[in-house]
């Protein structure tokens, strides 16, 4: 079905976020009124010619519409999804461009090309269309949506759509707003702030007093025809008092504001870390650890710098400029204006300077980052470097990245070292102008010496803050960037969180049910697709299948490290999303392939999830985990320090510690992720023994590649390409002669080969 419609003019490069009105109208014309609104859509941004284009795919009612906007007139085609003809929709992934295909009765009907930018939307669209073809309802009987809504993230503050590339609303993170927001942290410590700022302002005002006193000293006390020689000592006394007061103000300012800076930095660090722990695991896989560490340490330190010095310098400098300008103008308007002449030129120079500096600094930052990344790449891999005798190559790699930094700094240092003499010259030019104006007049007796000396002092007090503001511009920008990076963490909404009214379940039985669960990490590729199963309390389930089948993802969903995008996960018949997250996780035990030990003693590590546990229970758990004997074998026993820089433990020992940790925690649901894969067979036996004890009476999900370790499992779930391929006991699956049977055969053959 092809239809022509009136010409539509394009206004802007379409983003694919909103369905254009013209397209909606076109679709609306052809569908019954009650289904006129498309429920899902996506935009293909590559035309058949290979250039950027605009073709829309939309789902409205049971119709899949394609609207081609690339020609002079939009072209509309429709495919009936629920008719007699069998419709399939697939996405063929490519390099930078993928294809969305509609196949009707085995014949290619439509092919749309789109770039990476539209991949998420198309993936979502494909699944909506598939749901429609299967006739599955997207809304539960009680009206709650079964599938995640297609809407984009929306900012909580301004209700604008948040773009794909960020977690936060860029609008609300605007630079100026950031400084305002930073101020709200500063104002939490009102006492420090007011004392510090008050002292700073008072100090600035006192600064203006000495030159004024000097004028009186010279003109009225020291001059040959002085009238008030008796003022000498009182004036010196006042001068001394003013200086002392100023020094005290300076001390108060530095002390209070330095402390204030530390307080704010601490608040931000603590708040950022507290927020980080709420974020889902997805966040941590997306952001490199080093970057997060940097944000919390380095950026908060920069903010200290800004609050302790920058903030006050900006205020004081601006204040000083105004005060001095007023004083100068009041004394001698002409001389004052002459003093101001170099200022506009200086400001222009300064502006140009910062503009030239910025890209240079950026480049150096980038090269610096590259250099550090060479280091963090090579140092952990030193063993490999030595084994392949690539030391020279790595030395060269590092030296050349360090040299790259050096080369770029040449430009940078050239720039600022040329700039500052210019400024100094300019400002000195200002004093020369003042000298040439005032000199002849002093000789002519029109102008008093003291007045002139005062003027000169004020001039330097005037130029100083201007220079200061020039420098501050950069400090200000840097602080804003740092603050933004921290606020970026704080503003990332946790995707997995406890609902406001969770169902209380202090002790679960361990019945686990998956209902049409689908999941994706990147929004494009489905790692799990429509997985459904139910597990009885106490049952042991073996999870097997080819790598990348979705086994680890499945257990991640049980722990609720992530929420499924479609379908639901139930524990004891309660949707895990309705449970209290803490309650849920504290009843799930996890033993991983590479257990993580924290810096601390063996005992502390065993009691990691259960700090109150007494020594008896720790030993009991260690015994059950077959760990007691080797622990007591250490010279420091249970007090042995492990973790980074601690006692080195073998893989098997670490494994058994983590089993002891799980036993002590006494979870109702247990997850074993490749718990025995990286150890020798004797150790494996010991671990297996420990695991057998641990599994007793708990719902267990064991992931294993070596199928022999799953022999105790009541049932096996075989995952392949994100789908539940098979499910049943060992015997049933062997009889079914499917994926499992083949895996089993291969491993048996391998074992036989190894035995020879």
């Amino acid at each position, binding site marked *: 079905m092809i239809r022509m419609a009136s010409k539509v003019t394009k206004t802007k490069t379409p983003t694919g976020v909103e369905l254009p009105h013209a397209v909606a109208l076109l679709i609306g014309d052809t569908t019954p009124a009650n289904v006129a609104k498309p429920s899902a859509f996506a935009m293909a941004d590559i035309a058949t010619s290979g250039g950027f284009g605009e073709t829309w795919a939309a789902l409205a009612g049971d119709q899949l519409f394609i609207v081609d906007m690339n020609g002079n007139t939009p072209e509309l085609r429709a495919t009936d999804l629920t008719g007699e003809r069998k419709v399939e929709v697939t996405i063929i992934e490519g390099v930078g461009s993928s*294809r969305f295909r509609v196949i009707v009765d085995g014949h290619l009907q439509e092919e749309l090309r789109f770039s990476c930018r539209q991949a998420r939307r198309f993936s979502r669209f494909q699944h909506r269309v598939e749901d429609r073809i299967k006739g599955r309802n997207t809304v539960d009987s009680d009206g709650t949506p079964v599938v995640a809504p297609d809407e984009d993230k929306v900012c909580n503050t301004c209700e604008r759509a948040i773009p794909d590339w960020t977690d936060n609303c860029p609008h609300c993170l605007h630079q100026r707003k950031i400084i305002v927001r930073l101020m709200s942290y500063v104002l939490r410590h009102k006492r420090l702030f007011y004392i510090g700022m008050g002292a700073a302002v008072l100090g600035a005002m006192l600064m203006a007093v000495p030159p004024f006193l000097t004028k009186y000293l010279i003109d009225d006390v020291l001059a040959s025809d002085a009238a008030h020689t008796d003022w000498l000592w009182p004036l010196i006394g006042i001068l001394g008092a003013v200086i002392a007061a100023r020094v005290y103000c300076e001390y108060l300012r530095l002390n209070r504001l330095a402390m204030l800076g530390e307080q704010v930095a601490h608040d931000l660090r603590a708040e950022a870390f507290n927020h980080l722990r709420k974020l889902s695991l997805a966040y941590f896989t997306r952001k490199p650890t080093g970057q997060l560490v940097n944000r919390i340490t380095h950026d908060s330190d920069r903010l200290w710098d800004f609050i302790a010095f920058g903030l006050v310098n900006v205020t004081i400098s601006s204040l000083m400029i105004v005060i001095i300008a007023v004083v100068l103008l009041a004394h001698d308007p002409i001389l004052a204006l002459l003093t101001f002449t170099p200022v506009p030129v200086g400001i222009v120079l300064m502006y140009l300077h910062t503009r030239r500096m910025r890209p240079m600094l950026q480049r150096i930052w980038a090269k610096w980052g*590259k250099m550090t990344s060479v280091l963090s790449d090579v140092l952990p891999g030193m063993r490999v470097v030595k084994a392949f005798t690539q030391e020279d190559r790595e030395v060269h790699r590092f030296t050349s990245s360090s040299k790259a930094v050096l080369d770029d700094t040449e430009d940078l240092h050239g720039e600022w070292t040329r700039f500052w003499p210019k400024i100094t010259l300019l400002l000195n030019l200002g004093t020369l102008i003042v000298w040439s104006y005032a000199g002849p007049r002093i000789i002519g007796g029109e102008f008093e010496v003291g007045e002139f000396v005062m003027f000169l002092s004020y001039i330097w007090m005037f130029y100083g803050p201007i220079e200061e503001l020039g420098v501050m511009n950069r400090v200000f920008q840097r602080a804003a960037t740092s603050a933004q990076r921290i606020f970026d963490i704080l503003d990332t909404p946790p995707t997995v969180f406890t609902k406001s009214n969770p169902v209380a379940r202090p002790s679960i039985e361990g019945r686990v049910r998956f209902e049409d669960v689908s999941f994706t990490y990147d929004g494009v590729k489905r790692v799990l697709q429509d997985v459904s199963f139910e597990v009885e309390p106490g049952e042991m389930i073996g999870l097997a299948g080819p790598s990348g089948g979705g086994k680890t993802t499945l257990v991640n969903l049980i722990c609720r490290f992530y929420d499924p995008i479609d379908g639901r996960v139930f524990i004891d018949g309660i949707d895990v999303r309705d449970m209290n997250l803490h309650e849920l996780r504290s009843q799930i035990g996890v033993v991983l392939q590479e257990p993580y030990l924290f810096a601390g003693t063996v005992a502390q590590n065993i009691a990691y999830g259960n700090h109150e546990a007494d020594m008896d229970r720790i030993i009991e758990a260690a015994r059950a985990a077959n760990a007691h004997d080797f622990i007591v074998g250490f010279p420091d026993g249970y007090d042995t320090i492990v973790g980074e820089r601690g006692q080195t433990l073998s893989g098997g020992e670490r494994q058994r510690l983590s089993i002891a940790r799980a036993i002590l925690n006494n979870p109702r649901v247990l997850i074993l992720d490749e718990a025995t894969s990286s150890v020798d067979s004797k150790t494996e036996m010991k671990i297996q023994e420990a695991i057998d004890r641990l599994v007793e009476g708990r719902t267990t999900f064991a992931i294993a590649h070596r199928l022999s370790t799953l022999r105790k499992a009541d049932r096996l779930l075989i995952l392949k390409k994100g789908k539940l391929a098979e499910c049943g006991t060992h015997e049933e699956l062997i009889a079914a002669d*499917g994926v499992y049977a083949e895996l089993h055969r291969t491993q048996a053959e391998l074992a036989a080969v190894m035995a020879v």
Partner: protein
Amino acid sequence: MTTQTVESDKKEQKKDQPHRTIAQAGNLRLWRDARGHLAALDTSIENDKPIEEVRIARCFPWSQRDRYVSVRDGEGREIILLPTLDEVDDATRALIEEELTAQEFAPRVTAILEVEDGFDLTVWHVNTDRGPFEVHVKHTEDVRQMEDGSIIIKDHAGGKFAVDNPIALDLNSQRLIEERLA
């Protein structure tokens, strides 16, 4: 337990094709089936059963574009590795090239019009051989120079925009890119 779902899923899942290879590039014959997928035949075998859902991939999409093309089956197993396309017959070569063009999208940047430095994101307004585009760059290291001197600007969504010969760009474009090159 939802044994039924599993059973029906199993029926849907086609029995895996056995892994097959074709020894000689000259014996490879490709065509496009009704569903739009590529299919392959070994011409040295009489009445050969076609290999379905064939995919084409370049081994070195950036550094050795025209050499080492891998022909793969639907399971991602290699049927044949073609060091060059010289030895395959014309129709097959045309199909391989057509498929590669369709699955690749690597616009070449012809000019950089403007670069907006945002807080979290740098927006590059560029002209490419495929039309104008706004490239959204998240990290400074996403604009990098390759060993051969070309520059690749990576979009946050994964798209790559190449500047083959930066020195051939106009001066303003060169300045903009030079300033932000990691």
